[in-house]
């Protein structure tokens, strides 16, 4: 909406997986939504995402995050079905369970301790993660290397195509009459009468509420709305193989095979600022570890590699908050834009439509960082 337009019910700043899931979730409730997006030049973690819908180990140290993640995974089946019906694009969600490889006695003991710590995070629903010895692993995941001594399995884990998910959310938003404005990096966000205005090179856009979902951009946009958004960049690099006939029966924390047949090989955690460079030493290590876990991959041709920048809060858990000084302004950040898409679209968006976050999300406010003592939770 330009200066002469009526304005939206809600302005969403950021058109990546978080912003698009919220925007579609708001539009499906009948809201008039405008998404203001920097465009494909954005840092855009959504385009580098590995694609796991992953529950195990999330929220070790913050049980609310464990429950929120589980809730999202529980919603994902219906979310994927409704999104495909609304958009005509399948996000290719599959939920065969997921496996985390354990390659040493120390890793096995640490995992056992984590499962003990987390056994009660979901109350009666159960944590649902079990340790499998090598014999049990061979029964469900043939072809593992000799160094894999055990694994942790969760039936709640799965995977999806991040690119198809993003496409589906945008198509679903458009089908609901939502507006998407590209090449419109938010330069300023301000109070405007009873609502808000976002200023961009493409003009100013007005809305009754504003949701900052601009990834790392929230750090710079938040303060003008009284929102403190402490975020840390963390690079991850990924290798992708040629298309291969079905080889991996389920996703793992470092390998997953897409519907089309490529195997994605990931898992690096690097402090290189906002760089998305892919670099040979790290890619070499990733490839070596992958072959150690699953030796048949040594025969696969690599066709792509890339780096992407995760969006991490100081404790690794999401930040959801409404401004105290500017009611109606919200900020949303997480690094698991695929896993949490179900909860964002079907649980968080309805709260934003009502104009108030449920009290169960109070714990996710950045006020938890105010005293400076931060414990990094497993993410």
């Amino acid at each position, binding site marked *: 909406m330009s200066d002469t337009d009526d304005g939206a019910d809600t302005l969403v700043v950021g058109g990546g997986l978080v912003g698009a899931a919220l925007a579609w979730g708001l539009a499906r409730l009948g809201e008039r939504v405008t998404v203001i997006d920097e465009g494909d030049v954005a840092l855009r973690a959504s385009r580098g995402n590995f694609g796991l819908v992953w529950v195990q180990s999330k929220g070790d140290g913050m049980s609310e995050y464990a429950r929120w993640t589980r809730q999202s995974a529980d919603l994902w089946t219906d979310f994927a079905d409704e999104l495909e019906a609304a958009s005509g694009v399948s996000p290719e969600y599959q939920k065969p369970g997921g496996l985390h490889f354990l390659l040493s006695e120390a890793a096995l003991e640490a995992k056992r301790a984590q499962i003990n710590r987390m056994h009660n995070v979901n109350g009666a629903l159960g944590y649902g993660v079990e340790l499998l010895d090598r014999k049990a692993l061979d029964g469900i995941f*043939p*072809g593992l290397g000799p160094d894999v001594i055990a694994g942790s399995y969760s039936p709640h884990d799965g995977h999806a195509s991040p690119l198809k998910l993003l496409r589906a959310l945008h198509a679903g938003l458009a089908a609901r009459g939502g507006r998407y404005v590209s090449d419109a990096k938010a330069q300023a966000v301000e109070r405007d009468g009873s609502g808000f205005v976002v200023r961009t090179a493409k003009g100013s856009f007005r809305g009754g509420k504003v949701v900052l979902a601009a990834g790392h951009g929230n750090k710079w946009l938040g303060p003008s709305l009284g929102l403190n958004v402490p975020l840390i960049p963390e690079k991850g690099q990924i290798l992708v193989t*040629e*298309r*291969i*006939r079905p*080889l991996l029966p389920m996703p793992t924390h470092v390998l997953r095979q897409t519907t*089309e*047949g490529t195997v994605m090989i990931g898992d690096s955690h690097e402090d290189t600022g906002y760089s998305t460079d892919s670099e040979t030493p790290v890619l070499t290590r990733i490839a070596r570890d992958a072959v150690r876990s699953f030796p*048949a*991959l040594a*025969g*696969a*041709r690599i*066709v792509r590699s890339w780096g992407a920048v995760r969006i991490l809060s100081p404790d690794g858990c999401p930040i959801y908050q409404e401004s105290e000084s500017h009611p109606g302004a919200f900020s949303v950040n997480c690094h698991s834009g695929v896993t949490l898409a179900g909860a964002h679209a079907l649980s968080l968006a309805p709260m934003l439509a009502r104009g108030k976050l449920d009290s169960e999300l109070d714990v996710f406010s950045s006020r938890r960082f105010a005293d400076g003592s931060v414990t990094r939770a497993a993410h």
Partner: protein
Amino acid sequence: MVPSRARRIEEVRTISFEFEGLAVQAQEGDSVAAALTAAGIVDLRDSPVSGAPRGIYCMMGACFDCLVEIDGQPNRQACMCEVREGLVVRRQQGRAELEL
């Protein structure tokens, strides 16, 4: 022998290789993709996603559309492989198979 139908800027040594059992004429220094195109062969594989035929697109190693099987190795980029006397090239059919 399928002849090279392209008019060449300069003539170099003529060699031959095999595509789907047919002998194909090429010139030394051609990429497999260039030699097949010059011989009028453009259908190089089936998409493992849609089943539709695929052929060359970018000719510079970026798009991975010109995948063929070369000397038994699947998913080789025809535009990035130099043709050699006696090379055995087949259409890439579906996905590669890895032995566990």
